[in-house]
């Protein structure tokens, strides 16, 4: 490439316009000013290029140079990703702190993967084997929870000439492959442009649930591996706690958590808490399967726009190894606002609420990168990437453009209500407004692995909750006393479903995670109580006595029964029987 240099003619916030930029392509990375701030070309007009700059632009002015790199914005993929904390353009924040101190200064250039660290590479192929794009040639144990597969990078296929076992850095060759015309060296690290989805053989229909240990989600509104979900809600309704719970307890192999334009202290919380929490399956710290991307609200706005792409590209890379990956973006509204800000500075004609007209296309494109796929390469691996985005609509108003654009593409909608949050009913997921289109998809899995009637139980419980909502309307008009005893029983049981089952305390050591079998046992017990109480009332028991039963307190506390003592939940059935039978006995004595 010839040595070229552009010159800045205009600076307006994060947007810089430079001339002399002929030869640059859209979305190429450029270096701006003498400090070499990182920017990306987002519009070309003749030899004028509009550049969004990923760092603060104070002190930059016309006449300053712009250096093109002629390369698109890319991330580095390879060993060293897990447990990392990156900013929106994959600069490791821990190294930044070591180098420049507590504040993020400008013009920092640190590679995403550690160049010095050595990883043990173990070949899974030998010389003479034929390989193609995506073929796994070896593996690197990265943490106790994650063993990375090293795959043949794009553009290479042929025969392995040499492959070595041993300790290497990410930039030392581990193998040589003879392609049609030349021999190429293979490294553990590869690069991929963030705005392009990584390729796969075929998309597959989703079939397996992704259990999260959160009762309202798993039982009523489950998400599938490879599925998409969104969590819109006003501030204070618990979006971030749900995202954190998901990152902590969901049954995925890899978690990618993107803090996009949110609070700095929330990222600190994740950083401090995840190493302490242990994975229920392996007993290892959850951090050992997590990649964090933090672009907090006070960090430059353009990098916020890039952070979701950086995150999803890393997620796709792990998906390609055959892992089940879950990506959380908190919050996609901030991403959309970053698009709006840049679009406004480009003086584009706005669409709804000042958002650019391409907003919904970008959102759809992003969520469509989720899915369950058959990966490239010679073995038929399947990997999945589930995406959960939270949305922060202004005033909690669901008619917001970002919410509506998202709802058109995602399959699961967890609607948060501030009314529930005010009553400290968490997770504040509305059971009447939310939906999941995966309920039927995962039905068979639940019947087989959890309980045969799990699906029916959930349906029965939901019916009771719907009935409760109807009865509440009546009560509001004519008062509770006018209800029939059987309706009052429904109210009592629905209350129990709400308070004893749906309400879940994320900060309680046991309640924070509930296995599917415990969820089934809990729901089973509540419905058992309903059936038995109904029978007893038919035999003449009074509803007011049933409402006062001591066993109700036992039911209320079943959520605190540890996972390894689940038989205790079943035992409560005996207490229900005996207490209810006493009610009819006294009736008979009278």
């Amino acid at each position, binding site marked *: 490439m010839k040595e070229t240099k552009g010159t800045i*003619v*205009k*600076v*307006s*916030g994060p947007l810089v*316009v430079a001339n002399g930029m002929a030869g640059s392509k859209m979305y190429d990375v450029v270096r701006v000013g003498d400090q070499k701030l990182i920017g990306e070309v987002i519009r070309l007009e003749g030899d004028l290029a509009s550049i969004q700059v990923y760092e*603060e*632009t*104070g*002190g*930059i*002015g*016309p*006449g300053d140079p712009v250096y093109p790199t002629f390369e698109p914005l890319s991330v580095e993929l390879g060993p060293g990703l897990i447990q990392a904390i990156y900013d929106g353009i994959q600069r490791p*924040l821990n190294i930044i702190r070591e180098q420049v101190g*507590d*504040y*993020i*200064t400008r013009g920092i250039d640190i590679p995403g993967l550690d160049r010095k660290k050595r990883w043990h590479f173990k070949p899974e192929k030998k010389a003479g084997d034929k390989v193609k794009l995506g073929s796994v040639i070896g593996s690197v144990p990265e943490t106790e929870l994650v063993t990375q597969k090293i795959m043949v990078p794009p553009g290479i296929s042929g025969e392995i000439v040499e492959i070595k076992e041993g300790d290497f850095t990410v930039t030392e060759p581990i193998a040589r492959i003879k392609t049609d015309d030349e021999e190429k060296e293979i490294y553990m690290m590869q690069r991929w442009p963030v705005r392009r989805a990584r390729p796969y053989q075929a998309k597959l229909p989703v079939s397996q649930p992704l259990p999260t240990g959160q009762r309202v989600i798993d039982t009523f509104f489950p998400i599938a591996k490879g599925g998409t979900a969104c969590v819109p809600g*006003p*501030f*204070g309704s618990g979006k971030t706690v749900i995202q954190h719970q998901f990152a902590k307890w969901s049954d995925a192999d890899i978690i990618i958590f993107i803090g996009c*334009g949110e*609070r*700095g*202290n929330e*990222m*600190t*919380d994740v*950083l*401090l808490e995840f190493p302490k929490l242990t994975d229920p399956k392996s007993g290892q710290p959850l951090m050992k399967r997590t990649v964090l991307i*933090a672009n907090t*609200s*006070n960090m430059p706005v353009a990098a916020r726009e890039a952070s979701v792409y950086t995150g999803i590209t890393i997620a796709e890379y792990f998906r390609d190894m055959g892992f089940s990956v879950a990506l959380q973006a908190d919050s996609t509204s901030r991403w959309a*606002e970053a698009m*709006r*800000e840049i679009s406004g500075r480009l003086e584009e004609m*706005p669409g709804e*609420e*000042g958002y650019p007209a391409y907003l919904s296309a970008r959102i759809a494109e992003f969520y469509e990168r989720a899915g369950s796929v058959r990966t490239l390469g010679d073995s038929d691996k399947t990997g999945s990437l589930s995406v959960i985005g939270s949305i*922060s609509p*202004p*005033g*909690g108003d669901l008619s917001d453009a970002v919410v509506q654009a998202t709802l058109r593409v995602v399959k699961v909608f967890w609607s948060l209500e*501030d009314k529930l*949050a005010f*009553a*400290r009913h968490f997770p504040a997921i509305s059971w009447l407004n939310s939906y999941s289109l995966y309920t039927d998809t995962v039905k068979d899995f639940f019947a087989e692995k959890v309980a045969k009637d799990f699906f029916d139980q959930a349906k029965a419980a939901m019916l009771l909750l719907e009935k409760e909502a109807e009865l509440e309307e009546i*009560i*509001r008009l*004519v008062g*509770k*006393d006018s209800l029939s005893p059987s309706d009052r029983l429904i109210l009592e049981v629905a209350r129990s479903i709400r308070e*004893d089952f749906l309400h879940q*305390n994320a*900060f309680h050591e046991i309640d924070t995670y509930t296995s599917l079998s415990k969820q089934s046992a809990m729901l089973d017990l509540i419905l058992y109580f309903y059936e038995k109480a109904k029978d007893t009332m038919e035999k003449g028991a009074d509803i007011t006595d049933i409402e006062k039963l*001591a066993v109700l307190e036992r039911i*209320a*506390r079943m959520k*605190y029964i540890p996972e390894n003592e689940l038989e205790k939940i079943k035992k409560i059935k005996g207490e229900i029987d005996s207490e209810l039978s006493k009610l009819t006995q006294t009736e008979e004595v009278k």
Partner: protein
Amino acid sequence: MIKDYQTVTEIAGPLMLVSGVSGVKYQELVEIYLPSGEIRQGQVLEVDEDRALVQVFQGTAGIDIPQSKIRFLSKGITIPLSKEILGRVFDGLGRPRDGGPAIIPDLWQDINGAPINPYAREYPDEFIQTGISAIDGLNTLVRGQKLPIFSGSGLPHNRVAAQVVRQAKVLGKEETFAVVFGAMGITFEEAEFFQKDFSTSGALARTVLFLNLADEPAIERIATPRAALTAAEYLAYECGMHVLVVLTDMTNYCEALREISAARKEIPGRRGYPGYLYTDLASNYERCGRIKDKNGSITLMPILTMPEDDKTHPIPDLTGYITEGQIILSRSLQRKKVSPPIDVLPSLSRLKDKGIGKGKTREDHSDLFNQLFAGYARGKEAEELQVILGEAALSEMDRLYLKFANEFEQKYVSQGEYEDRSIQQTLDLGWELLQLFPRVELKRVRDEYLEKYWTKQGQGKSKIEPIENKTTEEKTE
């Protein structure tokens, strides 16, 4: 390299266009020399080839096109800092307004600051006792938190803030702390109230004030919170002090921002506020916190008056998305003479979970506040029902909850401006109120705490007088 120009080509609202400039940088500080000899300050908002768009902090009244001279200073807006700033009063741009001498600076600091690396942050988990039950017990404030007060015109937000400044302390620790007070467009009376209150409580010597009053230039308000936070960062991280920053009134700040945006003919977002309002507010609010291996901390309490008490108005809405909770004042509680009129249901402190519990406040704190919230929420529902149907339509249990909600407002939330309750008093009072209920209703509390605190008080060991003996005895049996 300092350059003077006399090439103003356009003046509109608070903005001024200077042509034929060279070497001008984005966000550069500008001085404007008026023919009258007056000097004003401005800042470069945009540079397009040889034209620079400048916002004038003191307004453009009196500036003319042919004679005004513009000087670009090749630096951003900086303020002088040293420990001497304590006890002093500055204007919105950080110049002394108390008649005292100029500050001999330790260092000059750019008021825009730089973003804190999230990896360098220490999680805020030190409990601050404000002595106000509705805050300590239910919406606990911790060191390094940003907790705004959402208020409305005519509500006593200033008094609540002053009470917090007076009473706030971290238990069991003797540390140096300071107050930084940034006022944007408040009235002389309000500013006077704070100054007087600080001086009676002896806080004035530890306070730095940045005042921009209602009759002073509106555009200067854009710099005021930044100057205040820059001073706070200096005191916290250079001098190791624990700083409480009070910013009032953020609504005026946002309006100044809107004025600039409108003058620049930007595409407006909701209610005419610029699309970057969230980012702009975040760049201020996120400057508070704690940093690993540093002694000091910045706790931020911005105050904003919600237009028409509307929480979904862009200013409170975007603030709520950035801050770690909010304290909301309620007009209906104010009418009921509840003081402070804190509406605890929509109020929230996101950081309370790590700041309370064993070793910080007391082990039972978390379960207790969950139970109090649930009870009060149900009581308020019963109250709504009662309004529609009359008390007779309520069930026995609903009536009990209604009674609880009233007791809770009158005894727990309401405490008066000068009562400083310890956290123990606050917690015990909570248990006291829960005596109203039968045990089966107390589902949010672990058995062990019920045994330890609830029944214990039922036996009359509490120092606080039981609310109504009859109910208490009946229910605990």
